[in-house]
């Protein structure tokens, strides 16, 4: 039984006396729901009533009343601006989330994405009227192929996890084409893997066999060989891995996997560490998804949208899903059907996250070959700078050794303080920082995974480091109050997540009749 839980209900704090009539504290404002401020009989959009006409809805017209509030433009702007101010964001401060690559989102990308020739083009327009759009897909595809040294790329997956699904489906199709679909039903996944990896494998009917990481935090060829068997379809490996380390034995692992007749899926979430430094194709990878919203700066938008194109080796390329772009003569065309092809099918309607392609391409053109390499080097440099500055005060699970673009600490250094990783994270909020990734990867107790990215100035890094050192000192001096009551300065204190799960309230319902 898995017993890795943690407290999810705060001790009820003494409610701070409300000093103000509104409950606001200067610029820190409370904001009601649209259902409480909007009027249900109003609209904030001027639409002319059409002239009388003969309806063609017949018996299909909606019968039940639709009840939704409308806000006038000033009300709407005020509502959403006030809500936005309760959010932390990269634009406001460092977002050191390991494995998320929260780098700066260039504003040029937003401007380019809004050009009508990109934003106002319908996916099913005659292809002759959408050549510019297809050029973007082609240009980004080529750039991704150059960076990864692979042979083909499926551009349609809508996010990283969707890309994983795409890559694994291609692998499954390749195995079925070899007639081994019944025998190869197992996927090897390191126990440090992101949850999407086993979830993806299970979605397509595979069972998961776990591979332990070694004492040094990486997967050894021996461990892989021990797990390989004729029933293995593929291995899913993240490189650099979720502990922030380059999988040193990756080439040997790829060879062993291929010798055993299986495929190598690489989770490309941490690609930011190695762009321009090494190519996954050279390491033996068969398929790898790339998170455009991580390595290529497309904005996270509060949780999405992402984009997860998948680069593939020549062995898997024939099975890639539709659609894909093909250059024929002087023009670009879209291949939208699988007939006569070995393609495994379709991942989604239309062609992929075009809006994110424009942004990613804008990023790539801006950086160029020199800038991309510099970005990876700065990302790795910054993470090691943080590591070197904190490793005397915090404990690292795999010893004092260089990391890649993210540094992993565990909670052994908090052992006698009575404080947890969670407490430490919440205290960071009061200092004006978003916490690092906590409790991931699962193989390390109380994990703290810090990824500064290349976007941080040295001054920003130095202040961050000094703050963490100050917090660490306070923790060891058992100044528990600073941690256990945190956060006190954020728009909200710790939330009662137990109540949210035991008594789910997932939408607003009126408590009184209209």
């Amino acid at each position, binding site marked *: 039984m898995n017993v890795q839980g943690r407290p999810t209900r705060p001790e009820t704090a003494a409610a701070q006396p409300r000093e103000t009539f509104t409950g606001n504290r200067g610029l820190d404002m409370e904001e009601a729901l649209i259902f409480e401020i909007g009027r249900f009989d*109003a609209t904030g959009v001027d639409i002319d009533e059409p002239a009388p006409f003969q309806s063609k809805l017949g018996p*299909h017209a909606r019968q039940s009343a639709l009840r939704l509030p409308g806000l006038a433009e000033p009300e709407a702007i005020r509502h959403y601006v006030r809500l936005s101010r309760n959010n932390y964001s990269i634009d406001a401060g460092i977002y050191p989330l390991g494995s998320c690559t*929260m780098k700066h989102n260039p504003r040029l990308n937003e401007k380019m994405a809004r050009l009508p020739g990109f934003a106002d083009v319908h996916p099913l327009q005659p292809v002759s009227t959408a050549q510019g759009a297809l050029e973007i897909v082609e240009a980004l595809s080529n750039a991704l192929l150059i960076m990864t040294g692979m042979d083909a790329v499926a551009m349609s997956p809508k996010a990283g996890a969707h890309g994983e699904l795409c890559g694994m489906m291609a692998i499954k199709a390749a195995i079925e084409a070899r007639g081994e679909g019944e025998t190869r039903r197992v996927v090897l996944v390191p126990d440090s893997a992101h949850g999407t990896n086993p979830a993806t494998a299970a979605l397509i009917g595979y069972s998961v066999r776990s591979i332990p990481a070694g004492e040094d935090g990486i997967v050894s060829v021996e461990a892989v060989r021990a797990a390989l068997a004729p029933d293995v379809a593929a291995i899913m490996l993240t490189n650099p891995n979720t502990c922030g380390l380059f999988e040193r034995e990756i080439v040997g692992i790829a060879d062993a996997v291929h010798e055993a007749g299986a495929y190598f899926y690489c989770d490309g979430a941490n690609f930011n560490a190695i762009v321009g430094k090494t190519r996954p194709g050279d390491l033996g990878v068969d398929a790898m998804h790339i998170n455009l919203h991580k390595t290529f700066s497309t904005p996270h938008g509060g949780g999405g949208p992402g984009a997860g194109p998948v680069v593939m080796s020549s062995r898997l390329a024939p099975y890639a899903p539709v659609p894909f772009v093909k250059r024929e003569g002087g023009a670009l065309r879209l291949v939208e059907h699988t007939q006569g092809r070995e393609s495994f099918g*379709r991942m989604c309607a239309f062609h992929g996250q075009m809006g994110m392609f424009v942004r990613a391409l804008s990023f790539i053109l801006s950086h160029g070959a020199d*800038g991309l390499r510099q970005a990876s080097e700065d990302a790795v440099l910054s993470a090691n*700078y943080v590591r070197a500055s904190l490793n005397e005060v915090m404990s690292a699970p795999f010893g004092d050794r260089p990391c890649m673009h993210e540094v992993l600490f565990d909670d052994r250094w908090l052992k006698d303080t009575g404080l947890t990783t969670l407490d430490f994270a919440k205290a960071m909020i009061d200092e004006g920082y978003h916490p690092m990734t906590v409790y991931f990867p699962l193989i390390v107790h109380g994990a703290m995974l810090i990824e500064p990215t290349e976007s941080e100035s040295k001054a920003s890094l130095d202040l961050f480091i000094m703050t963490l050192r100050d917090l660490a000192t306070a923790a060891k001096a058992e100044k528990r109050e600073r941690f256990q009551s945190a956060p006190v300065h954020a728009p909200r204190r710790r939330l009662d997540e137990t109540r949210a799960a035991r008594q789910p309230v997932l939408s607003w319902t009126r408590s009184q009749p209209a």
Partner: protein
Amino acid sequence: MRYLPLDASEREAMLTRIGVQDIEALFADIPADKRIEDLLDMPLGKSEMAVERAMTAIAGRSVAAGSVPFFLGAGAYRRHIPATVDHLIQRSEFLTSYTPYQPEIAQGTLQVLFEFQTQVAALTGMEVANASMYDGSTACGEAMLMAHRLTRRNGAVISGGLHPQYADVCATLAHMAGDRIARLAPDLKASEGIAAAIDAETSCVIVQSPDFFGNPRDLTPIAEAAHAHGALLIAVFTDPVALAAVRSPGEMSADIAVGEGQGLGNALNFGGPYVGLFATRAKNVRQMPGRLAGETVDAEGRRSFVLTLSTREQHIRREKATSNICTNSGLCALAFSIHLSLLGAVGLERLAKVNHANAVELADRLSAIPSVEVINTHFFNEFVMRTPRPAAELTEALAGRGVIGGLPVSRLLPGAGLDDCIIVASTETNTDDDRAAYARALADWLR
């Protein structure tokens, strides 16, 4: 480089602090023979001005929908989006924030998601909605898998009126998971006998209304047939504005409602990013995929919002998760919600009425042209037009005359014997001049 704040002396100082001579020492774990020595084979970095010039030139090589009379839908709809929407989604705190895993500093996102969930539930007539999926097609596939889990069966029946690409997504998922799927033939006139295809092995029936060909459908008898066999009805829609005019999935006893939310708040964007809407009955919530924002209180008793029921999701359940999905379509969901907050039910109903009125006007105009036939008895803002000539040729000819006239059915359903059919859409963005231009160009070409 304008996005990289570190300078050479700072890099030196950092290397010193780390205790290495040069940056390559930090890449030592990469096997020596696999390191890239030179720069990648691509151009060097460009100034903002140069990038803008290059991208603008590419953008100039597509026809923007707003620059011509435009009548194409088939799953994505050109809407007028109030200026407020795009302005608000570009606020730093919405644009550059992450998934709200630290709720104390993400109440903006969480409250928006709660409002969004409420709006989607109301629109679809269901009890609970999630915080969005990638798009309508993947939401449809996920609904199918959810039905399999709920009924413990694995056979899906798919209407011939479902968007063909949505059906392809379901078929791909089914094949990969080893599940069964029965796809009915393309159903131009909403006349298929789908109830007859349901049996004791069926987990779900997936039907779209208004369907791919524009026909609104009465799904109530299909729901009854499904329920009689212990199966579920999944109702699909591709234009959220339609739900203000035609009967909602909830009204027709659907168990799961999924659809595309692009039609509110989100530009066409050549197919993405879009936003998948997903709603169901409260009793099914534990099997619903995707993120959920729930209401609670904080330590001081103040109303707050937090992601909840997370044990359904991949980061906890791993291989037993309801889905592998990680991101939702956050910013697109925000845009949808803002647009709908401005409209309200009053505005949405009026918007739907204008869409319908414009479509009726267009259908009348086009069917007045000799040899042109509008197939649908009933429609909302899309209908099928038939002419004596192949539709694929027609749309190319219209494009040549500066009119985007619709989707030739053969593009998405080759070999279905519908080569003379074109799906024509009309939204509030079409003017009288647009309709006149279409009729003129069509009459011209048919002469």
